[in-house]
């Protein structure tokens, strides 16, 4: 949870969940550092191209921060809106598959019946970690693909918290 990563620095001021944390105490630790931005960009493959974007992120975090005003002591966190539903168990029969042709049509590049991994750092990385597929998780720290997502608006929309409605800012 990326929000949690940002709030690491807020631990000192946010010891308990009671009451509204004072604005003064919050202000300093709310700053989003350059390393954090880099970290988030690598993890989530988003592009914080400018200072405006960072400022917008900080505002979004501050807005969501108001959730902490709610006293949740002794309340079990809800993990899923499906918590009262039954988890359906499927019998162990083979009913799908055998559609390689169809699936491969989705891929930009195909070699025989294999998907070709998208070009970029991921592929270059594979050259260096030759034959050891278990290194995948470590390799992700080097994947740095720029995508042009309007993160701020997405955040606003999903949080449904922005009283001004979704903004159409370009980063």
């Amino acid at each position, binding site marked *: 949870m990326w929000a949690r990563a940002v709030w690491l620095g807020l631990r000192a001021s946010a010891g308990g969940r009671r009451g509204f944390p004072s604005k003064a105490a919050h202000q300093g630790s709310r700053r989003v550092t350059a390393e954090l931005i880099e970290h988030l960009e690598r993890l989530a493959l988003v592009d914080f191209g400018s200072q405006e974007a960072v400022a917008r992120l900080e505002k979004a975090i501050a807005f969501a921060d108001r959730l902490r005003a709610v006293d949740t002591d002794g309340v079990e966190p809800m993990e899923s809106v499906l918590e009262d539903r039954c988890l359906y168990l499927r019998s162990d029969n083979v*009913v799908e598959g055998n559609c390689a042709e169809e699936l491969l049509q989705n891929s930009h590049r195909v070699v025989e019946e294999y998907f070709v*991994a998208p070009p970029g750092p991921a592929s270059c990385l594979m*050259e260096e970690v030759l*034959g050891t597929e278990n290194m995948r998780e470590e390799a992700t720290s080097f994947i740095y693909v720029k995508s042009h997502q309007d993160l701020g608006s997405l955040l606003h929309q999903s949080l449904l918290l922005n009283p001004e409605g979704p903004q159409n800012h370009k980063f």
Partner: protein
Amino acid sequence: MATPMLRWCCPGRRWIFAGIGGGSRHGRGVPTGSTSSGKKGQSSVAQQPLITAQKPRKGEREWAAVVGLEIHAQIASNSKLFSGSQVDFAAPPNSLVSFFDASLPGTLPVLNRRCVEAAVMTGLALDCHINRKSLFDRKHYFYADLPAGYQITQQRLPIAVNGSLAYSVCVGKRWSQMVTRTVGVKQIQLEQDSGKSLHDNLRSQTLIDLNRAGVGLLEVVLEPDMSCGEEAAAAVRELQLILQALGTSQANMAEGQLRVDANISVHHPGEPLGVRTEVKNLNSARFLAKAIDYEIQRQISELENGGKILNETRSFDYKLGCTVPMRDKEGKQDYRFMPEPNLPPLLLYDSGSLPTGADPQQVIDIDQLRERLPELPRVTREKLVRQYGMLPEHSFALLNEVGLLEFFQNVIKETRAEPKKVTSWVLNTFLGFLKQQNLAVSESPVTPSALAELLDLLDRKAISSSAAKQAQCVKTRKNSILIKGGLPPHLQPHLTVSGGRKVPGTQRTLTNKHPEG
């Protein structure tokens, strides 16, 4: 002694780094020669001083190593964990992939009942507490063979926790000195496997095969209760046998059905634990102990030389026989765990809590599964020892080879010879013969009946043991045993070839180096 020697005493869980020149001579490599000789040379460690007539140098103290394991076992099921595509090792690329496995938008996970049963059975076999409610989470990271960008696992509340695994290691020189150790099982969780990435060197590109993507895995996390490679290998071996006995996984390391990652650190006894490194890519039973021991030695050497251990991930290079760092400049990976929003909690029941009128297909009864658990290797071995009076290490040897136990039991059924004799024959002569010919038990030209017959003859002292050994070793086509040499006349007509066919009229003689009346 002129050469510096690395010795350690596994049973005492102490690692002694002792050398004439101190640590500096060892540099980066590990004198693998000393590894094996060191172990074999130790009989009863407590009494024997490690280096005779040499006082430990100033500053040299004992080291203790701590090894924890994360084992991934592929569940033996027909279809995958969350989709209905087939689980198979060898199939045309991307032919066993459903829309969900390819992570096409709009697809949802549907849990496979068999995988849940496999997890519960494994948990019961390892004496775990089965969580009546367990949850699924998403573990996010980007990689070409993970089309969804996340793996569905059980990080917060796994299906089974707090168990234990008993295994045996041999201390001392002889196989006969075995002790039982226990390692705690921290948790067992269900998770998805990823696809396979193959690197095409020629065209410098990565090819992805998603046949394996979505296959159910059991992740068994073992507590850091082990102290050397041998213990770790023994624990993994026992787990392998348990999984195979339960039928929950074929646990074949060569086919990638069982994968092991090790967490290793060293420290001085009495002091806090050291920084640990994770060693991945341990996919061979043979190299498991070696890799772990290498890493322990590397850490000891590093610390003895005044260096520091980084909390990093390393990989074992089979060709070089050493661990190499995997580039990890960013420190710990942040997987951004979040609850899997498409799956409600997994609820399990027992006979006391079964909801009335529930569809049996939709409900999993832990007590029912417990009743249906197959016999565990530990129990089988105990039975063998009790029933046939064999030594514990013999029971281990019988279970260690695929098909050998069944062969042994079939011979016992048909022969009049004493069980001890049968045991000795099967484990020494027969198994030795197979190994020499590089055959599996299933490929043996000697059938249980034939061996039983042979042992009967031996029992009646009709033939000598050396003759019998020779008879067994001579094989012909069609599984028949051709027995050469002198045979007392009154036995000739009674001699049959394996398979029960008598070959009339053929002079059969037995070579008899020690003529018997």
